[in-house]
């Protein structure tokens, strides 16, 4: 019930305009944190767009996740400026600390480790974003602290 209402509101806020499919999915993604199958089917039905098209969009763009994500999202920037300043090594460090590979979610749903291609704050590189908090050049002890406080 709740789910279909949420979809209805999202679809309604764009006057059921089919051109707005991406915008609608973006809103739903930020609401749920990911796009469950039921949401996609509901969108297809309410917007009267074939499910194949909805799925095509949801699987093509990086902003959408078809898998549930962890409570805390750790994003390591791999843009060129961060790359030059050692972000791949930082990613390795973080992956080793969290005991998981990039693009994985921990089994207890605590962390999802993601990479991004440039957040546009290159002066601070290498940058790690944990739950929308930006961290510039974090040291290993600083990272330990950040991850410990994220329950």
């Amino acid at each position: 019930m709740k789910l279909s209402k949420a979809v209805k509101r999202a679809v309604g806020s764009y006057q059921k305009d089919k051109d707005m499919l991406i915008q609608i999915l973006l809103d739903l993604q930020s609401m749920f944190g990911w796009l469950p199958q039921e949401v996609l089917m509901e969108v297809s039905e309410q917007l009267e767009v074939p499910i194949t098209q909805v799925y095509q969009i949801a699987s093509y763009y990086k902003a959408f996740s078809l898998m549930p994500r962890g409570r805390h999202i750790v994003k390591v920037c791999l843009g060129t400026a961060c790359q030059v300043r050692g972000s791949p090594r930082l990613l390795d460090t973080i992956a080793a600390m969290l005991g998981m590979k990039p693009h994985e979610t921990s089994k207890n749903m605590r962390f999802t480790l993601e990479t991004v291609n440039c957040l546009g704050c290159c002066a601070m590189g290498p940058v790690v974003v944990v739950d929308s908090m930006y961290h510039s050049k974090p040291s290993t002890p600083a990272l330990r602290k950040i991850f410990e406080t994220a329950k």
Partner: protein
Amino acid sequence: MGNQRISSVKELEKLRKEILSKRDPGKSVVTVCTGTACQTYGSLEVYGKLVDEIRKQGLEGVVVEAKATGCHGFCEQGPVVVIFPQEICYVKVKLKDVPEIVSATLAQGRVIERLLYKDPVTGQRIAKDPDIPLYKNQMRIVFGNNRYINPREIDDYIALGGYSALSKSLFQMTPKQVLEEIKKSNLRGRGGGGFPTGIKWETTRNAPGEPKYAIVNCDEGDPGAYMDRSLMEGNPHGVLEGLIIGAYAIRSHEGFIYVRQEYPIASENTIQAIKQAEEYGFLGESILGSGFDFKVTIHRGAGAFVSGESSALMSAIEGKVGEPKMKYIHTAVSGIKERPSCLNNVETWANVPLIINKGAEWLSSIGTDGSKGTKIFSLVGKVNNTGLVEVPMGMTLRQLIYDIGGGIPQGKKFKAVQTGGPSGGVIPEQYLDTPIDFDELTRLGSMMGSGGTVVMDEDTCMVDTARYFISFCCEESCGKCIPCREGLRMLREILTDICEGKGQEGDIEAIEDIAKVMQDASLCALGTTAANPALTTLKYFRDEYQAHIKEKRCPAKACKALTSYYIDPEKCTACMICFKNCPTEAIHGGKGIIHWIEQEKCIKCNTCFEVCPPRFSAVRRISGEPLPPPPAPETKVIRDKKR
């Protein structure tokens, strides 16, 4: 504010006078940069505290206001606070500095030495921001207004003469005259291609079919480039005014602003700007009472690099998958819903009001023969002054990197500068005196691109750089055409092998062959240019490729598979710093016991190398030669014995 719809030029000028009359130029205005970088350093808190403190210290009469502005460009030194009219610039401002800023500088006009920028070369403190080397050598005609404007207040833009170019266009010029003015200025597209803007406009204007669309491309996907974000975030009305003028010239009544998903503040500020412009009557029906109608919708991207390509972006606006189309016919003729669609980059649009106000001759008096005006660059990577800089076309790369950027940090050696993002290439030292110009950079095998300028020093491996860009494009390729999809995958495999010490004879030739096919046969510009980083690194740094392939050695000591970390027992003072910082506990030893690295546990994260104090420099990177054994196996050497 924002309650009246302006319906004539007279009313606009009356409003401008009203706004200006409330502002006393003699009184202080204190601005805080709240671009994304400064926000991360806590500039919003600094701003909040400033507002509180001004009230607390009873300075309302002395200080007109504290203003949260968009990005000033000096991102390395955030949070940046500038006090007008004196233009005193404070950098790296902390919360605890705020009361003193208010009591000393704002109340008494006294400058606080320790908050001033210190020139790393001369060691001198610099008080005024026009005197800071980063700013001094710039020409900030497009980007400069950012520091005077609260991007969420349309009145700030109007106070600076905003929307006067629009009123001039609508009432003193015909659409044709506006178009001719832009053509005459020789403005070229700032998004990368450098296509003449006026000619693009003319194509859309003359193309059959209604409605016509005008679009702002703020899908700034090039890693290392963020000037469009800062403009869209910091001065959205400047871009919007350009768009409306362009729409008038090409006879479009509907427009879109496409903003990249990774830029939430840019989206918010744009939405707010559109709303305010609608309320004031700069958008909507009969703009300023002229009879010209235009409406704008914002479209957020969903994360796909290729969506910055014009036909892909237009598909995304239609709500479809953002794949490029074969451009037998240009999007300027057949774009959104197969209607004529004129798409320009954020920076291009932001140039338009300036050209209308100051004239085509003014713009074409700046720059080189082929490239007119200025360009905003994001100067990033291994350079002292990181940030956004706007310079006249024709400035040399050396001036950009050394005079403005302050050179390479920590006395390292310059190796190359990468321009043009994943479609561009690297430019080595011998070409540093090349003037920055669309055609000159292309001649070197790179390109201007959107303006990302990533400086690389001796620690950057050129093969790894090529691998990085190729694998970036490999992930971002939409997969529609085979040369791009499969070519990139093959290039990635070869380059990864070389970086991992598995390179073979013939690899270099294979890279060149594949690149050629991709250049000739790919569907869109992503594919035709994707091999550029590999080709330019090969052209200028072939020896590095050969060292990897033949000697299994990475000259920059950056490729993990070819590099090992070693603590020199002669130099190690057992200070415990690397020991504590190692994320995998690969470093053994202890207090007073010389440290050594257990190679099996080492993930080569470079942390120990970075944290080892320079006066010891005990951590060494070794590539292409055998690793010395750890100190006195099993029994660890006690440091005191050495003394």
